[in-house]
């Protein structure tokens, strides 16, 4: 009798997961205060593409990203990047957190923040040398922030702050990027700049996974979409014959809560929490 908890050694051994995928999530469940927020997520990201994670509020979009990056504990499941563990592939991963996650009154300039993307390359105790500063400045220029490099970050508008975060991720020089709502609450100019940068990343062979909240712009900006509501509703290309961005799928994603699963989740939480 096969023990229910036994899993294969590597995801790549499983036929449905490919070893070359930048991100393979297998059977991931995440619980917050013992209540499942993500249930049994199974996903392979295609390489060299712009991927949108879409779903209603509380669907676990940010949770998915954070759990992949080990920022939240997983109740179960495994994640691999390029067929390797997170630890081994950390240098290939860039991250743009939600803008609200930090204190913008912090006494640093835009350039300082962008340079933080280079810290992993600089290593312990090293100073931020001119070479690294130049690299950071170049990243700021790519998001159109070169002129404001020396501004303190609280003196930037919301869109400009978001661009600084993007510049920091660019400075990481990664192959796979996770971005948590980079387009939330930004002005039109910033949105255009960010999309330009995303496209140039794709043409440079990188993969970008973006938590996105604005449905109408999905077909315009992204190649792939992951429809999420606690579980994966559908994942695949946005357009073409294989498109999963259909009104039927959207209805299933946004159409109300999964009452039965919710009831069960509640019962689980009650039993464990007391």
């Amino acid at each position, binding site marked *: 009798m096969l023990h229910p908890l036994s899993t294969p050694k590597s995801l790549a051994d499983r036929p449905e997961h490919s070893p070359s995928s930048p991100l393979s999530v297998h059977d991931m469940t995440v619980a917050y205060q013992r209540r499942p927020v993500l249930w049994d997520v*199974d996903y392979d990201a295609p390489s060299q593409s712009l991927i949108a994670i879409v779903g209603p509020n509380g669907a676990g979009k940010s949770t998915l990203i954070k759990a992949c990056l080990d920022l939240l504990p997983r109740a179960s499941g495994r994640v691999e990047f390029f067929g390797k563990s997170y630890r081994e592939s950390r240098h290939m991963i860039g991250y743009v957190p939600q803008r609200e996650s930090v204190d913008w009154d912090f006494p640093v300039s835009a350039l300082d923040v962008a340079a933080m993307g280079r810290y992993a390359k600089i290593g312990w105790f090293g100073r931020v040398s001119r070479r690294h500063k130049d690299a950071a400045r170049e990243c700021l220029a790519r998001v159109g922030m070169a002129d404001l490099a020396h501004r303190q970050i609280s003196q930037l508008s919301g869109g400009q702050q978001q661009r600084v975060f993007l510049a920091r991720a660019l400075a990481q020089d990664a192959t796979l990027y996770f971005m948590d709502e980079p387009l939330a609450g930004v002005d039109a100019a910033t949105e255009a700049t960010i999309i330009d940068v995303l496209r140039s990343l794709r043409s440079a062979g990188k993969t970008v996974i973006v938590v996105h909240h604005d449905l109408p712009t999905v077909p315009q900006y992204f190649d792939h979409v992951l429809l999420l509501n606690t579980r994966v509703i559908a994942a695949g290309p946005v357009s073409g014959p294989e498109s999963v961005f259909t009104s039927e799928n959207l209805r299933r994603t946004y159409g109300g809560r999964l009452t039965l699963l919710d009831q069960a989740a509640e019962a689980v939480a009650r039993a464990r929490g007391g």
Partner: protein
Amino acid sequence: MIPTLREFLAIDLAAIITACLCALACAIVGNFLVLRRQSLLGDSIAHSVLPGLAAAFLIVGSRGSVPMFVGALIAGVLSAILSEGLRRFARVEAGAAMGVIFSAMFALGVLLMSLPRMRSVDLDADCVLNGVLETVIWTADASRGTRVPAVWSDLLDPGVLAGAPSQLLTALVVCGVVIMVVLAVFKELTLASFDSALAGALGFRPWLLHTVLVVLAAAASVASFEVVGSILVIAMLICPAATARMCTSRLRTQIALSGVFAILSVLIGYLLAGFGPMLLGYHSLALSASGMIAVAAGALLTGAIIFSPSHGLLARRIRTLRLSVAIAREDLLAMLYRVEESGDARSLTLHHARLALGGGLTTKLAIRGAIRRDQATTTPGGLALTDSGRAAARALVRTHRLWETYLVKELGLRPDHVHRSAMELEHHTTSAMADTLASIVPSTTADPHGRPIPGDRPRGNPPE
């Protein structure tokens, strides 16, 4: 060395009653501070009392209890206002703003205390930190006709009551005021502590309630600091409330419990400080009573964190263990059912059952539980289901396979992924949920793995 009744009444009783009253007042206010995550407001107020005392003495020139009380109260409220101002107008982070204000005020107090004019008074920074519980005693003053109680019934004598120490009277008044104010605005305070925005929307003016709370906290701390010292007041404010919070989720019960814990810590602390060393044979040693009260409050809290029947560490562990035993037992039944279903042997060996359930204490308890409940029996070959066990197992397997079918057919999960989820879900499914499931799941008789879904009652038995 055990005190006589006379000594106890004259020396210890006043101190104990005063400390109890102070602790009670602090604990009641503390509940709201803890709920509003403003525990450190108490810290800030307690540190800031010192310059108020010194200033009151310098202005009035005597150590009367009313000016002292007013001075300290003003200083306490002022510290809260100043740190709020620093936070709002100078954008200093809340914790740091408090730290700046209370340390500066405390330093100012220490400076004022060491002025030559203050030397004459028996009030120094040290007794503000530690309190002077030892000086709260009944005094006999022939000119005012007061005397010291000698027997219990003396406590009803007006002459004796008039000689009660002033700290006791202050504590009595403050405790009464605190209780009355909290009773009067209980509803508003609760609402504002729970949801300050909603309270504002309902027109309760959160800042006003905040001010009331600050003044109450200041009054309670000022009344207490003389007895237990300004640092230990913080223990009185926070510990009983936190202890009570570990024991209940209802605010009313929490407040009542916090009062009980406050009085308990005073009694335990005072008695241990006075008589603890005696029990160990050190007859001349008396420990700091106020320090011991704080330690007792901390010990009660530690006890509650570990042993509280509702939210304690131990209770949570036991609940988890019980749940995992119940789950393992249900897994065992389902396993036995599947073995029966597959039709080979009629029993599962104990060894295999233990292996499959993961071994350890949980498994042992689960197997024993199943036998005790008459759901499984030991046979020469191992374990087998009894009739009642078979019924329970059938219901479980049915739920499991219904869930699997639901997850695959309705939610589109892959068949090879659903077993684990179903394993989890089956243990938490109520019969109502199972009925809903059965009505949603298409009336197929096989689960995604091709095995039959058992009916909700055994075949062959006529429905009742």
